[in-house]
């Protein structure tokens, strides 16, 4: 190969390099990122329960170019429905699961078998699967504790307390119960109502009839709403203490039926869950545990400027 050929070839090579750089850059900048498909599975008993969480999820989904499919499992049915949904979602090629489920050993075992590549993020409550997952929740124990200390502050001497825990297989409920008991001690507690699945209104009502108490404490949104349905006509101010952030609950805070409410920031929980899922799907599989803030609300501070924004999220 003569010098001349060498020279020509080198120049050609240089230009070819430039060309391929251009092609690569051009093509790759055209395309958008992969759209991830994420399924959310939540226990819910009505459409309002998770509306704030859904807003957070949807806002994040738009930002991270993710497609979200939200599924709700009734709080009263067993594990089968939940497993069916998960199986179906996995079959349809979902990339990740965001879960809020009860701790059922059969469920955990099945999940351990089913979840291979799927990324898991748990919100509000966690279950002990062997695969690594990120966990985003409020400090459940502290929530219970704060609720308890508020109750203790307002409680008049000699009045009785009934604690409605709800689904004792839900980790979050148990942690809150522990926090609550830690705050109030168990002297004043007349009864604690808990079950393997979420309690119905009838069960609570009948328990109230059976042994009425002066204060009813609900440890999650579902039971709190049920307690409110029972107590709203009662008229006694501040006899309900609860957890949650639905319109109904907020209404009754305003009415004064709820003496104190602990409201976790579900919007952020939803947002962070998608954010965390996005990170996991992009190979950052550190097991993160993120704490979500909560507010302690009562009738007096409900309309405070900062509280207002979180308790009355703008829904059109």
């Amino acid at each position, binding site marked *: *190969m003569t010098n001349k050929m060498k020279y020509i070839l080198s120049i050609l090579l240089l230009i070819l390099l430039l060309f391929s750089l251009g092609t690569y850059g051009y093509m790759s900048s055209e395309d958008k990122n992969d759209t991830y498909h994420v399924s959310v599975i939540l226990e819910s008993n009505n459409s309002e329960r998770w509306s704030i969480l859904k807003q957070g999820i949807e806002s994040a989904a738009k930002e991270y170019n993710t497609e979200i499919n939200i599924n709700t499992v009734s709080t009263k049915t067993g594990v089968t429905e939940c497993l069916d*949904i998960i199986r179906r*979602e996995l079959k349809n*090629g979902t990339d990740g699961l965001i879960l809020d489920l009860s701790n059922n050993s059969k469920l955990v075992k099945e999940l351990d078998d089913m979840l291979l590549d799927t990324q898991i993020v748990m919100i509000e409550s966690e279950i002990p699967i062997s695969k690594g997952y990120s966990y985003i929740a409020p400090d459940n124990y502290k929530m219970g504790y704060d609720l308890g200390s508020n109750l203790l502050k307002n409680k008049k001497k000699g009045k009785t307390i009934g604690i409605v825990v709800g689904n004792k297989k839900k980790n979050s409920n148990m942690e809150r119960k522990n926090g609550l008991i830690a705050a109030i001690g168990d002297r004043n507690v007349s009864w604690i109502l808990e079950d393997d699945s979420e309690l119905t209104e009838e069960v609570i009502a009948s328990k109230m009839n059976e042994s009425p108490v002066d204060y009813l404490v609900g440890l999650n949104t579902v039971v709190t709403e049920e307690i409110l349905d029972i107590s709203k006509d009662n008229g006694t101010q501040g006899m309900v203490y609860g957890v949650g952030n639905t319109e109904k609950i907020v209404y009754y805070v305003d009415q004064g039926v709820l003496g104190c409410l602990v409201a976790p920031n579900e919007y952020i929980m939803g947002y962070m869950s998608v954010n965390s899922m996005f990170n996991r799907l992009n190979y950052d599989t550190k097991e993160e545990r993120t704490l979500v803030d909560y507010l302690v609300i009562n009738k007096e501070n409900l309309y405070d400027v900062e509280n207002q924004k979180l308790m009355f999220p703008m829904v059109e």
Partner: protein
Amino acid sequence: MKQFKRMLCVGLCICISFTLCGCGLNNGTKKNRITKSMKIGITVYDHYDTFILELMDSFDAYVKDLETKSGITISVDVENAASSQSLQNSQVDDFINNGCDVICVNLVDRTDPTMIIDKAKSANIPVIFFNRELVEEDLERWDQLYYVGAVALESGIMEGQLVVDACNNDFNAIDKNGDGILQYVMLEGEAGHQDAIVRTEYSVNTVTEAGYDVEKLGYAIANWNRAQAQTKTVQWIEQFGDDIEVVFSNNDDMALGAIDAFKASGMKIMDFPMIVGIDGTSVGIDAVKEGSLKGTVLNDQDGQARAIAELCVSLITGDELPSDIVLDEGRHIRLPHQMVTRFNLQDIIDSK
């Protein structure tokens, strides 16, 4: 020489790999990973409307059912148009851009579906209108437009019939002042709204055609809203007091507002005038149970929800509709109303 050749080879390899990568990236993203899924976009005219709320709840339940049965992932996106047609139009736009397979529209303004129809047609996405009916000519503009709902005047007639039946049964219980004329007030849903107009007219007409005389004491527009109806009724109570013998309400929410007003005035339920509503929402049914609402007309929100859900799935998968859902003229599904009173209440509750 060898060294040069080697350099040349390496350089060529780099070039080729870059080019291929670039092209590969562009094409590779178009993989279709979800094998079976569909997306439904729903825009409701006002998601605070109790009827719509309950309709959506039933819809969610039916969708979940269908998901389990068919194994297809169905994601539903519900948007609130907050009584703004322009907002609804842009929501439909978003649905189309986000790849919805079916769009369900609960029109804010029934005279203005043009933009929605045009956009859906050019994107070739079928539209199911529900509950708020559009003009027949508009529905015929494309063969992929459907309507699920009820016959509006049927509800008005039935509401009137409720009063007629009660009068036939015991006129004097209703005609409190015994002048043989039914004094009534009318709570109207919305100015210029199709259903409101029809219900208003046919309810009273039915009564007069049955031979009873009526006298309108007052009417007000309460925007389908319970609290607003309550306010208006309070004003009437101040003005007319016991003279009010019948309260016609275009829907249950407003009827409940009237009931709230009467309750607040201290009147006992058995002294209430005959209050009738339309919808048959669960709160309405509760009020019927309670006796404060004398009757309502069940707008089969459950049936409608089921019809919409089945129709959505059928449009995408191509499967047949279940046998009890029939497409009228290939585009209408109209579910019949049903009168609800204290007497047939249990049956209604059982059938839900």
